């Protein structure tokens, strides 16, 4: 069950939400989705039916992770369970010798302190290293940002400003800007971390705007060359149009990230810029393919940094 390009069998933990889309991409990319984990027999049965409606799913459903791992021995475990379960599920899978891809946020449990959560994240990365398996976090806007860079590299020269703007519908959530930040900020932080991997947040420059559903953080990102990037991470949930906005703006040049289903029903990304549109495969699909082929697009160190920034902003927003 060691990491390598021969890794093919996958177990998906949690398929009620984003996990079902992960499952489909694993299938499309040639992996065998061997098992899923759900909370109850009823939820597992529902999930199996849902997956069968999406692709020829032939795996088994479990409600016990230990049983799943013992019976199926998957090469890869994809953790898509609720955020407070990420740590326990990832640790169990890593101990069983599986490579682990974990949905964002890496670890998060509102009952724990940031120090405790960082400790958990560090433990998981150390465990993956000792077990000689892959570990990665699924923040696919890292891949999307690299695509933007490939489309217009000239727009990224002498980078001075970045705005990551991510809006999604409220879906009945109560207004909670801290939760909005936890849900969405890892993507927008990941995008600038992908473009400026050497950048350090100038924490005294941080300005926050947390109200209703909106969570916004502005800060300077210091680079080793001595220049700084003015960053504006703006996340929001709303039910008025436009309810879905995924926009990365570098040096005042916007990249609108949208998508469409192709003739085969597969989601494709369409990036719109002032100079035209660019179609490519879905960023999540590409991240999953990379992981299958032995590369974590957001490996442990990058995931730790992403979590550290996310939590530190949250602590400051909460008056910590």
């Amino acid at each position, binding site marked *: 069950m060691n990491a390598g390009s021969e890794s093919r069998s996958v177990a998906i933990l949690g398929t009620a939400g984003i996990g079902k889309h992960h499952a489909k991409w694993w299938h499309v990319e040639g992996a065998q989705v061997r098992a899923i984990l759900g909370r109850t027999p009823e939820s597992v049965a529902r999930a199996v039916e849902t997956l069968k409606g999406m692709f020829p799913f032939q795996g088994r459903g479990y409600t016990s992770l230990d049983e799943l791992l013992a019976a199926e021995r998957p090469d890869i475990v994809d953790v898509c369970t609720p955020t407070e379960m990420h740590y326990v599920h990832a640790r169990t899978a890593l101990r069983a010798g599986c490579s682990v891809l974990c949905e964002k946020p890496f670890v998060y449990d509102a009952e724990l302190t940031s120090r405790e959560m960082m400790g958990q994240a560090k433990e998981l990365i150390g465990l993956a290293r000792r077990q000689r398996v892959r570990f990665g976090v699924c923040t696919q806007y890292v891949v999307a940002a690299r695509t933007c860079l490939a489309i217009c590299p000239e727009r990224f020269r002498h980078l001075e400003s970045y705005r990551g*703007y991510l*809006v999604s519908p409220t879906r009945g959530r109560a207004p909670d800007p801290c939760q909005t930040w936890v849900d969405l900020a890892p993507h927008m932080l990941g995008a600038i971390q992908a473009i400026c991997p050497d950048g350090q947040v100038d924490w005294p420059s941080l300005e926050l705007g947390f109200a209703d559903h909106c969570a916004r953080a502005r800060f300077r990102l210091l680079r080793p060359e001595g220049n700084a990037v003015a960053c504006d991470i703006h996340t929001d949930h709303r039910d008025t149009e436009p309810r879905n*906005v995924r926009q990365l703006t570098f040096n005042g040049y916007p990249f609108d990230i949208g998508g469409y289903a192709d003739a085969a029903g597969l989601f494709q990304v369409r990036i719109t810029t002032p100079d035209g549109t660019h179609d490519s495969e879905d960023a999540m699909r590409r991240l999953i393919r990379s992981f299958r082929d032995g590369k974590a697009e957001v490996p442990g160190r990058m995931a730790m940094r992403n979590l550290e920034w996310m939590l530190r902003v949250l602590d400051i927003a909460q008056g910590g």
Partner: protein
Amino acid sequence: MPIAEFSKLAPFARRAGIAVTGRERLARLGKRLVFVWVTTDASERTVRELQRQFACPLVCCLTSADVERLLGYQGTKVVGFVRSSLAQSLYRAGADFRIREDSEP
């Protein structure tokens, strides 16, 4: 051509949430605006009022039909742009159409 660049960038401003309309809302956000776009079919009186009201630059170009085409706002002749790098890019593209304080509108 600057106006072409302005027209290319403008559609992104609404999705970015940085385009603001409505006199009251514009007045509230006055200090946070990079510039105000007023269309060429706005009255001279409107332009004079905007000059008095806003400390930020005024850019006068295109028509209200262009506002509808580019931003989707119907019958709108005045749009403000909130401080952001995209608003700065828009201003640079439209700066040739800035109304000078000492010029007659």
